[in-house]
């Protein structure tokens, strides 16, 4: 059972990420995967959600290059990734220029440090 000491779903997700572990949820009632982390299943209303480690592989569902002045850091990618478990998340694809991120591209998750907090980003599978 999840306790207050361990925090809610959001807090536990982030705590795991901060230790370098990417986890998602799976409903013990309807067996569907869930992301973002919740305390009630959005598919069936069940309240028993287990933490599971995703394979880490997925496909770019959509992508945009956010334009930013070079002095502010330059253009960057924002993508939606469909994990092979069937859940979608926002992230960015690293290791290729933003304009070369394409819908349908196979990607793999990694946890990076973002100002002291763990963050899931993706790399093109070919480029790992």
């Amino acid at each position, binding site marked *: 059972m999840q306790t207050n000491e361990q925090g809610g779903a959001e807090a536990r997700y*982030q705590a795991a990420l901060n230790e370098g572990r990417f986890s998602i949820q799976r409903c013990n009632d309807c067996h569907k995967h869930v992301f973002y982390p919740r305390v009630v299943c959005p598919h069936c209303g069940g309240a028993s959600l287990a933490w599971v480690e995703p394979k880490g592989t997925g496909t770019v569902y*959509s992508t*945009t290059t*956010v334009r930013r002045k070079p002095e502010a850091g330059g253009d*960057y990618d*924002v993508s*939606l990734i469909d994990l092979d478990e069937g859940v979608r*998340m926002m992230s960015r694809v690293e290791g290729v220029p933003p304009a070369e991120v394409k819908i349908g591209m196979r990607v793999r998750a990694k946890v990076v440090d973002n100002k002291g907090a763990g963050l899931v980003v993706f790399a093109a599978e070919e480029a790992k």
Partner: protein
Amino acid sequence: MSLRDLRGRTAIVGVGTAGCGEAHGMSDLEILSQAAKAAVEDAGLAMKDMDGLCTANLNSAMWPLNVVECLGIRPKFVDGTNIGGAAFVAHQLPAMLALNAGLCDAVLVCYGSTQRTATFGRKERTAARNILDPNPFEGPYQPFNPPSSYALIAARHMYQYGTTRRHLAEVAVAARKWAQLNPEAFSRDPLDIDTVLKARMISDPFSAYDCCLVTDGAAAYVMTRADRAKDLKKKPVHILSNATAAWHRSVSGMRDLTVTPSKESGERAFAAAGLGPKDIDVVQIYDAFSINTILALEDLGFCGKGEGGPFVENGAIAPGGKLPVNTNGGGLSCVHPNMYGAFATIEAVRQLRGECGERQVKGAKTAVVNGNGGTAASSQSTSVLATAGAL
């Protein structure tokens, strides 16, 4: 009571706008008050007659209180629902229910924002909202919202259906051509497709011209029961139906990026109205971004899914085209003070009254208004409106 039972039993009887474009030195509440006064007078009523109120604001969680105090009204029915810019279309259904249940006699729907000229403007508000209402699963990736979320939607539509940036540009150019016929529109300079394509990119596939304006503006309209409406100053515009669908908050929570809540709200609204897309004379779509118009035309059934790009080609929704869409110039070229839903409604009313001068759609008797809310086509509300003669 079903939605069908409410068909035509409520009318919009007064409309008003104020502070559109730039309202230097004015507050949200001040231009809202001016628009409210204009709408009430347009109806031939007095402010004290407003015993129902629907209003919302992006900066204030309890905004109806600001409005009742400022206007000096004590409404018996209050709806402060904020589901984004669709709210001011979605406010119609609860108001229709309240009016027809006899809870009140006149509902004032009103909105005002001076985001363009205010000291606490768009940039400051965005920073504050990131603290007050964070999105921990998107925020760290810094989507430039709302443009980036709608850009992701557009990119997926292009991938699945072959929609092109040129199709998106057609929407922006059509809006501008209508705006050139509207003396109240903010952006009236000539605009062509190549200019849209070559403009500064914001979030691919959008250039600056694919994105709505950032202006000030206030809008208000008054609703009453149909039996009372016929004795008022202006020709009533009847609400045949209104339906709202709210599907998600974030673009990552949107199941199919190419299908919007209008699919559901449009089906419900058309069914209750007893009309279909082919019966509609004029269309007002909340065009926060160029892709919104294409998606709404598809999801409301004016064309098939994926056919929105070809549908808007060759000036088809511009003046003189096959379907008049966003005849005031829309959010892209007329006015866009954060939330545009009330402005789309008012343009439909003005068209059905025949008050639109050079941009008037001749003989317009029916209209569809499609509101859009949130940073990712999150909520949408569809209304079917008609003149008394088309009931």
